């Protein structure tokens, strides 16, 4: 009994403080969580809107689509559908991730309404080397993906970036980052295209 009294005497401030601080954090969190969530979806929809022109609204079409990476790991992603003001489908978009040169790269990839062509990609988050790998978001590299066939892409070091096909010309000095972007596309495309085309047949 005397031990319990001793422990309480020593630690009452800690216990009280934990409850008070916990309460403060809980109140702040509940006040701000809605805003934080809407910020994230807004950023995602903004990027999707830039990729899929003419789209008005976005909705989640397929949830938790499982994709297998080259290393055999399974990742889950959601596929979003974009529709224009007459509720005609303008395209599909999904979040894709894979390892880059320094850190994970997260992209938003868009497909056209028939799931036959890519509509390009935007970088959601990346930590590539400034001046080299960070160039993956620049137009001369990312424009190669706009209109490219929705199939396995191949990275080359020579060729014309203006020619739109499944050959992607790497950024000189940033081969690893360029390869990473192509790999992310390749990891996802088969599963996502199958899902979209099968969904249409039904």
């Amino acid at each position, binding site marked *: 009994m005397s031990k319990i009294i001793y422990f309480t005497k020593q630690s009452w401030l800690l216990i009280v403080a934990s409850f008070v601080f916990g309460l403060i*954090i809980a109140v702040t969190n509940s006040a*701000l969580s809605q*805003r*934080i969530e809407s910020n994230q979806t807004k950023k995602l929809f903004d990027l999707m809107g830039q990729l899929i022109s003419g789209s008005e609204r976005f909705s989640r079409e397929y949830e938790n689509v499982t994709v297998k990476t080259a290393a055999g790991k399974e990742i889950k992603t959601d596929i979003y559908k974009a529709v224009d003001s007459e509720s005609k489908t303008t395209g599909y978009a999904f979040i894709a991730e894979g390892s880059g040169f320094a850190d994970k790269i997260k992209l938003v990839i868009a497909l056209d309404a028939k799931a036959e062509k890519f509509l390009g990609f935007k970088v959601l988050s990346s930590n590539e080397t400034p001046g080299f790998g960070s160039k993956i978001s620049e137009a001369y590299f990312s424009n190669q993906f706009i209109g490219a066939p929705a199939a396995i892409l191949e990275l080359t070091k020579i060729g014309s970036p203006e020619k739109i096909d499944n050959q992607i010309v790497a950024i000189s000095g940033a081969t690893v980052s360029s390869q990473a972007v192509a790999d992310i596309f390749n990891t996802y495309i088969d599963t996502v295209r199958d899902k979209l085309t099968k969904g249409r047949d039904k």
Partner: protein
Amino acid sequence: MTKISNISKLSETFSAGLWKENPVLRLLLGMCPTLAVTAAVKPALTMSVCVIFVLTCSNIVVSLMRNLLKPHLRILMFTLTIATFVTIADLFLKAFMPEMSTKLGPYIPLIIVNCIIIGRAEACASKNGIMISIVDALGMGLGFTIALCTLASVRELLSTGKIFEFIVMPKFFVPWAAMSMPVGAFVTLGLILGLMNVITRKNA
């Protein structure tokens, strides 16, 4: 008489953080944010504002409960207090400055283990009254801000030719990409520390 000595003590505490005991440039505390978020002025300034907020709040709370602290539990109490305010700052950033929040990434939660804040709680707030603690927090926080912004403006200028995202360098200037990478942080910090030593040695 006591009022005058009080004011002089307060101003002494405040100015100590700016130069004589500048947390970054003299005490070499808080090196993690100093090296990590100074690639540009904007993130450095955001980081500094967060540190000032956390430092002031934690100093106030620690100073208020300084007579209740048990010696062997004090570090635990400091960390708990700091973690609370850091979480609040992190939530506010996520809600109102989402882009800056992703840019700063893990470095905002890492303020919890920033030695400046725990050091001030131990060295000042747990021994002094609330007024001194607040002034000390503001002085130290401002010293941290000055150090970070100096470092960040040098690095941003040389790596992009801009300061605070305004172009200031002439057109023929070729940006040094290395300055926005870790190597730029170490080199700039080393040069600034060397400069500080030269100045203090001349004054001594």
